């Protein structure tokens, strides 16, 4: 592979029993592994319908004809491929990591998770694409299939740098043109931007199968600061003087409340939402979003 391997070997080994899946039936054309609304040749029974001239004779259910003396055609669900879209937040806040682990920022985790999903989709023969939202606009890799498309996506991931604030809505219009209805959308963000939350909500409302992973740093979870700090937000440029130990309890309480509000908002929009802290194993959020050994996903309580 020309691009660097984002996925650590241990995580890659644990990807084996994972399987991407959508709750709703997919509507895309072609043959795949996912159940769809289109009827055709398949294993899963869908319905009987009356014979119409032009139907193939071998599709007539002859046992039913023997009982009812009418021609019925047995239809099955056709297994369809899925289109997986990775919606990556690449605003400046995603560049934040932990001082304890300098090499691992939110964006690094997002890239690794994206690479994992791309691997899964490639294995299942699904189409996949990338939509990365940075301060300078949208970086889009149209959905495609196959190992060469995988490499194209990884190259795009490799070039991706966190910068700027969430762009205006008009800059995100190509998302609506590209991500079709029924596509699986995995949003990787810290969801600190209201624009990002609004985007995934509207995507979910427009019949896209949206899952979201909120990426949190260890410092946001534990708030281990001691002494005076000049906290700054690289995205907005705001600064705040605060004492670590004194502000801890208040921050943890308010931040947990904000996360609960976000989770309930996303759940009410029908979005599967999980949180991922940077010191956890990278396959854990995928495992919670896409439980193993189940093609038909049960709705997950966020």
């Amino acid at each position, binding site marked *: 592979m020309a691009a660097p391997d984002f996925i650590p070997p241990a995580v890659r080994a644990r990807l084996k029993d994972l399987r991407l899946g959508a709750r709703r039936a997919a509507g895309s054309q072609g043959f795949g592994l996912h159940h769809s609304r289109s009827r055709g040749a398949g294993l899963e029974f869908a319905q009987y319908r009356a014979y119409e001239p032009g139907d193939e004779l071998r599709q007539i259910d002859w046992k039913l004809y023997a009982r009812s003396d009418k021609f019925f055609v047995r239809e099955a669900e056709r297994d369809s491929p899925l289109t997986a879209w990775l919606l990556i937040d690449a605003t400046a*806040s995603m*560049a*934040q990591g932990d*001082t304890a682990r300098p090499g691992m920022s939110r964006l690094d985790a997002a890239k690794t998770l994206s690479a994992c999903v791309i691997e899964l989709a490639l294995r299942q023969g699904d189409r996949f694409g990338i939509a990365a939202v940075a301060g300078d606009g949208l970086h889009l890799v149209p959905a495609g299939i196959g190992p060469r498309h995988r490499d194209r996506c990884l190259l795009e991931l490799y070039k991706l740098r966190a910068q700027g604030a969430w762009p205006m809505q008009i800059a995100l219009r190509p998302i609506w043109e590209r991500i079709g209805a029924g596509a699986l959308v995995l949003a990787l963000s*810290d969801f*600190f931007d209201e624009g990002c939350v609004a985007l995934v909500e509207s995507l979910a409302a427009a019949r896209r199968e949206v899952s979201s992973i909120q990426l949190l740093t260890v*410092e*946001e979870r534990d708030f281990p*600061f001691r*002494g*005076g*700090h*000049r*906290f*700054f*937000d*690289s*995205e*907005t440029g*705001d600064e*705040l*003087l*605060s*004492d670590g*130990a*004194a*502000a801890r309890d*208040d*921050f943890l309480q*308010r*931040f947990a409340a*904000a996360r609960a509000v976000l989770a309930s908002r996303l759940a009410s929009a029908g979005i599967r939402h999980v949180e991922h802290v940077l010191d956890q194993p990278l396959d854990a959020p995928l495992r919670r979003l896409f439980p193993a050994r189940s093609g038909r996903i049960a709705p997950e309580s966020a």
Partner: protein
Amino acid sequence: MSLGLLLPAGLAALAALLLPLLIHLSRQSEQRRTEFAALRWLSASLRPRQKLKFEELFLLLLRLLLLAALALLLARPVLLGAAGDARWVLVTPGVDVTAARTAIKQADAEWHWLAPGFPGVETPVPTAVQPIGSLLRELDATLPAKTPVTVFVPDVIDRADGERPRLARSLDWRVMAASASTAKAASPSPAPVLVIRNADSREPYLPYLRAAAAAWRVMDAPSTQSPANTAPPSPEKTVDVAPTAQPIAANTRWLAWLAPGPLPSSIREWIERGGIALLDAEVELPEAAQAVALWRNTDGDELVRGVAIGRGRALLLTRPLTPGALPELLDGDFPRQLRRLFKDESTPPQRALASAIKPIPGGPSFPETPRPLQSWFLVAVALLFALERWFASAARRRQTP
């Protein structure tokens, strides 16, 4: 035992203790810039608390100790009353050490020679000479007051001074029989060059003085040399003969002035500065009346009289130095007699029975000589520095794994 400081002003260096305190002061007022995207939920109202806190307490302690030790080192620490109660045993050179060891049963006693510097008895017998009383007084002044002292002396002491030593402590004074080799008296110092200034009429005197001076040189020669090998000493080396007009050298000690008439003022000044002069019988000297007989012949007649002039002495001949007037000139004993006259008879006798000069207590006591501790403090400083470096680098290793 107590710690004293010879230079308490050095403690001003303790002000340097502020440095590590400042270094280790937790830099709370300086706000570290921290990237934090979840700023929205952080309360802004809380101001950083200003509280004195220190980081790396153990390292701080080490550094404070190091600086304190350095400051103490500058203040020149000494230990007062440090010397233990171990008995000091002093052996006079000439006393058998093994015999002395059987007499002292204490195992922790410290053995030293009673000699300048008090070297240990393991070292060879010291040869430097110093009066025994002086050594005892030095010992009494330097040793702590409560240290017991035993002194081994031979039964006859060669270098005694005029008084029984009066010491602050009472000594354990042990007299042992001296070994024979060291019992002999100290050899006399060689005679200086005899300077002779003579008038022409006194030429006949000269051979006798030359002969006497040459005989002194033979007397002073080491006895181990065989007489056959000894070259006869040249007259130029033993005497300095010249007319009276020639001035005498500044370092002259013994002079024979053989000329009639009054003594020149230069010669008289020289005598007053401490010279010893043998004066001709016809020299006119105002002090001649106070002179006392120094050498009499067997009949009791005065041959040479002596008188002190200033710090020097004048030896007044009563007769011409001719065999006719002074038959003792031809005696074999004449050089020795002449030597005795020149030699300073005022030096007191130095040999004494050891039991007679046993020191008596009641002497002045001296403030104790403190023991310097700087070397120990140097070692402590070096150790602390090494420890400090070790922990400082360990702390850095912890920070950058």
